[in-house]
């Protein structure tokens, strides 16, 4: 019950801010970026943080969602077309996730990372060379259907869906793969199935994110979805904590704000990003939240510990 109220409030507050023009267009773009990055980070976290499969190709799935959606909405510029576009994009991305997941299952950490990177690059190169995607020039004039309401709906659905999944037995099966794959198999977990499941769910959500991106920023080109974008998402997940959904959300917000701040200095932003990445890995590899979640209970505990400190003199 508390959750529903918190959700409703969040939606309402921002919606009001938008409608009363208190949030500028520029801030709106940042807001959109945050929401899309949250979807990307949470879905990558499922694959890499919870199931332990190191994927460096998340941007590739995003690009499939973006292009498929753009295709459909360019030919069918209605709300209906938009929704079909989002789901078709997500499904196409999920299909790719399945195709990527299946053959790469046997690979260990760093090999898997390189394989996913390779797959993502192949997708990008294909998009650059196809005529229907307009090659390197990209697609322009994509109808803009995304607003705060749609963003909120898709973002919340993703977060809730994935965190519910994690808490279930299926989610536990994925986690056991990360913990000890051989023991998991010995305990009856079909590790192949669950690795693929994680990839498919993760890529489905990345496809949604891509579709939303296309339907707000109305222009996409292959280079937007390269290795750098995959690294961007990975940084968010790592900073937030591999295995923490609330961590990903926090980190997405934090990094988007920093990015916006450093917008006029793109190289410095990258240098700082890179230095931060190295520093985090050396000094706090578990990121902000480790694999714990931020919850209302945590605030409760904080309150209790403060109270007890007051009592002790």
């Amino acid at each position, binding site marked *: 019950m508390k959750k529903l109220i918190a959700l409703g409030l969040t939606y309402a507050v921002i919606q009001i801010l938008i409608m009363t023009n208190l949030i500028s267009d520029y801030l709106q773009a940042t807001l959109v970026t945050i929401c899309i990055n949250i979807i990307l980070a949470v879905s990558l976290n499922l694959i*890499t943080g919870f199931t332990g499969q*190191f994927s460096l190709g998340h941007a590739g799935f995003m690009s499939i969602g973006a292009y498929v959606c753009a295709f459909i909405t360019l030919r069918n510029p209605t709300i209906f077309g938009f929704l079909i576009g989002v789901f078709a994009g997500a499904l196409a991305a999920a299909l790719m996730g399945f195709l990527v997941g299946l*053959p*790469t299952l*046997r*690979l*260990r*950490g*760093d*090999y898997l*990372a*390189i*394989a996913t*990177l*390779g*797959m993502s*690059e*192949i997708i990008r*190169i*294909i998009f*650059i*060379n196809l005529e229907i995607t307009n090659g390197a020039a990209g697609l322009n004039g994509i109808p803009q259907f995304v607003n705060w309401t749609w963003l909120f709906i898709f973002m919340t659905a993703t977060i809730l869906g994935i965190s519910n999944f994690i808490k279930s037995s299926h989610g536990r099966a994925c986690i056991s793969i990360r913990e000890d794959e*051989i023991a998991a198999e010995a305990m009856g977990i079909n590790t192949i199935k669950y690795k693929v499941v994680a990839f498919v769910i993760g890529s489905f959500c990345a496809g949604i994110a891509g579709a939303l991106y296309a339907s707000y920023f109305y222009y996409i080109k292959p280079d937007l979805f390269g*290795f750098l974008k995959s*690294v961007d998402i*990975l940084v968010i997940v*790592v900073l937030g904590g*591999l295995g923490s959904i609330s961590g990903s959300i926090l980190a997405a917000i934090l990094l988007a704000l920093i990015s916006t701040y450093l917008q006029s200095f793109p*190289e*410095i932003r*990258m*240098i700082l*990003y*890179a*230095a*931060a*990445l*190295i520093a985090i*890995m*050396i000094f706090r*590899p578990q990121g902000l939240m480790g694999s714990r979640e931020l919850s209302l209970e945590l605030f409760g505990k904080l309150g209790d510990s403060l109270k007890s400190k007051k009592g002790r003199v």
Partner: protein
Amino acid sequence: MEGFLQQVVNGITLGSIYALMALGYTMVYGIIRLINFAHADVYMIGAYVGYFCMTFLNLGFLPSLVIAMFVCTVLGILIEKIAYRPLRNATRISVLITAIGVSLFLQYGMMFFVSANVRTYPEMTGIMTKSINMGNIVISMQQIILVSITIILMILLQFIVKKTKIGKAMRAVSMDKDAAELMGINVDSTISFTFGLGSALAGAAGVLVGVYYNTINPLMGTVPGLKAFIAAVFGGIGIIPGAMIGGYFIGAVEVLVAGYGNSMYRDAVVFAILILILIVKPSGLLGKNTREKV
């Protein structure tokens, strides 16, 4: 036929570059199981040092080459010491992410200092401008020198690895770090040395590329680096002769795809080779399958 032979010449030239870089990847992976993403950027810095030496210090080709190799050696050792050594016992994902961080740091750091603009190596003089004609096939002296230097460096490397004490230490540490330590080998210096060696080769590759292809830019390392890594995987990651074979194979494939197929897709073909190898035989051409002991 002549067209094909010309492609072969070009392929050998390109392959030499990939081989030099692949050696660095394979040695580092062999000794600490790390995919050193930053290796490609050490190559880039080598190219820039060579550029700097030739343009501003007016040094010749060979001195610039040596200086670039030296600078890269130091750089490689520094990177290992600062970024990788603290993570010696961390998870693979952590070190990999750090390597990505170092790579980006070098790329954008360079961009910040020298701007993203492309620079051009100064014109070569004397013997470097000549070429040999065999029928319709042109082999430039630059190509011959490039390949020769590569072969000399590879022979030197083999000598160091097979015939010297430090080489033996490198091999021991790659097989079993703890056992090597217990045998009295200084694991830290051996690893530093490995990084230094690999980076020197990368630096050489950078200068050679600068001379041969003429232009350099801060992001020049990414794609060749990836391909060189794929070459190392193809030949068998961790296996030195494998990196050499892999380098020439990938060079040949790239040149042939560009020449006879669709040059647009030549990068995609190389990535596809990677996927194929990882699926069919992840240990590579010369590699052996190692299982986890349960």
